[in-house]
């Protein structure tokens, strides 16, 4: 069977990201997955066990001390060379900032079509996308070149399929043309132990109704009790209650967790754009007419400062 390249998303702290396991699972529907690790020396070694567990028959290790010093260009160059050499059946990347950027450059280098934010993938490379604030389902296909597709996190449940990957080291040279955008500093920000917003199976979000930055503790408390991530509506972010990287909606993140809890969020269309495909939606809002209730599987009309502490207390009691 032909090879399908999966470009690995991983973090130093948590290793292989869930979206990578989703991509490996999707890749098995199109061929035999080969994982491509683009990172510093030793990066592939640390990830190989997990990649094998989810069916990577091969790992291409493009490791270089320099590769992370410049914004995505060196990675796109290595990947383009690999694609030209092995002629895979498809190339999958994560629909995250870097994955999309590498894919963009790859599309131009290879004069190849590109599809982003796929939530499903058929054996013939047809991708399913959900667009226009979750209102429309689209099926698309790359019509020039191979299927070059970025996959939205939390689209499918990863399924293990043990394999023992052979590792092939790739030679990485970073030409001057790929050194134009230099990363001079990476600053880690306190994140705590919460799961990443786009990958979390539970997301608890707060909106304007939360009222102050300090009150977001309530949102965090409930998220922690459920092992979830914290999100915020644009109104809450614009009011300075919570940082922008946690914004859910049109100009923020798109999430698709098993459970989404909206606290004090009215549910403007721009917010719904980012959470409409969640499996189960729960809302607490004091305004019974708030549009968020139109999509909530369970809604509580009431004061979140009363309802949320009681919810937290009741969850603790049941443990």
């Amino acid at each position, binding site marked *: 069977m032909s090879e399908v390249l999966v470009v690995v998303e991983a973090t130093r702290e948590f290793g292989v990201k869930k979206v990578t396991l989703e991509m490996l699972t999707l890749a098995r529907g199109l061929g035999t997955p080969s994982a491509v690790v683009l990172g510093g020396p030793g990066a592939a070694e640390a990830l190989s066990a997990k990649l094998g567990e989810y069916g990577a028959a091969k790992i291409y290790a493009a490791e270089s001390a320099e590769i992370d010093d410049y914004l995505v260009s060196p990675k796109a160059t290595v990947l383009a060379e690999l694609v030209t050499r092995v002629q895979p059946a498809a190339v999958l990347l994560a629909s995250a900032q870097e994955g999309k950027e590498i894919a963009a450059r790859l*599309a131009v280098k290879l004069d190849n079509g590109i599809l982003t934010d796929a939530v499903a993938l058929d054996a013939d490379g*047809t991708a399913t996308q959900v*667009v226009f604030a979750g209102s*429309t389902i689209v099926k698309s296909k790359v019509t020039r070149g191979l299927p070059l597709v970025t996959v939205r996190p939390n689209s499918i449940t990863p399924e293990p399929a043990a394999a023992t990957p052979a590792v092939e080291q790739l030679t990485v040279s970073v030409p001057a043309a790929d050194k134009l*955008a230099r990363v001079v500093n990476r600053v880690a920000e306190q994140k705590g132990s919460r799961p990443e917003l786009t990958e979390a199976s539970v997301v608890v979000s707060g909106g304007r109704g939360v009222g102050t930055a300090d009150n977001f503790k309530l949102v965090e408390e409930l998220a922690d009790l459920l092992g979830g991530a914290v999100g915020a509506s644009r109104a809450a972010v614009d009011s300075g209650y919570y940082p922008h990287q946690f914004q859910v909606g049109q100009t923020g993140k798109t999430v698709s967790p098993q459970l989404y809890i909206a606290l004090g969020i009215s549910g403007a269309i721009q917010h719904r754009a980012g959470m409409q495909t969640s499996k189960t939606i729960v809302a607490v809002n004091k305004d*019974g007419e708030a549009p968020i209730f139109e999509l909530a599987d*369970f*809604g509580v009309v009431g*004061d979140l400062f009363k309802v949320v502490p009681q*919810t937290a207390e009741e969850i603790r009691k049941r443990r």
Partner: protein
Amino acid sequence: MNIVVLVKQVPDSGADRNLRTDDNTIDRGSANNVINEMDEYAIEEALKIKEAHGGEVTILTMGPDQATESIRKALSMGPDKAVHVLDDALAGSCAVATSKVLSAALGQLNADLVLCGAESTDGRVQVLPHMIAERLGVAALTGARKLTVDGGTLTIERQTEEGYEVVTAETPAVVSVWDTINEPRYPSFKGIMAAKKKPVQTLPLGDLGVAPAEVGRAGATSAVLEHSKRPPRSSGTKVTDEGAGGTQLVEFLATEKFV
């Protein structure tokens, strides 16, 4: 500094948006067409740089006739002039072809700095800035929440999952911005009046050295096969809190096996 801002007209994200049933492209006829919101932040950033360092700000749009409205709106914020790439052959262009056309137009404009929004609210694809940079052989600094200009050196801060990165490049470069970078100004009455007289140059495809077969539906590198409306979510149970709202919420979570 010679700054070009990419502006795209999109259907209003605050209203219902549809794909056409005949050719699977965006239904612009039924939509309220507006400037892509993120592009207003790019315009604001361009104007701030011009105010601090001098230079000229040009709007570059590829789009149908009606995109003229968005170009005038953009000009009313303060840019000096605009270029409108307008050609019937462009309808239905994919991202790869769009980047080819915009790169060809940018090649004629001699920009030191190309500013654009990080994504459009219709496609949300986020690929254009890197595609254009790849074609032009210039740096791409993408997803900026902060941009500093020091002579010919550009430095951005961009948000990542782990924190943020500081990335730097020399001009010429493409910089894409998020809505956290500034607060766009509202056009003044004077600005709106002045915009009517600002030069808008129309560029047909022929002037860019791009063949009609390379763009539009004919030259598209991907195709929408089918589309359908997602069934609207139906609302479930709604209770009014009369002292036991939190408990009822947990009971629901328990039946769904979340607790």
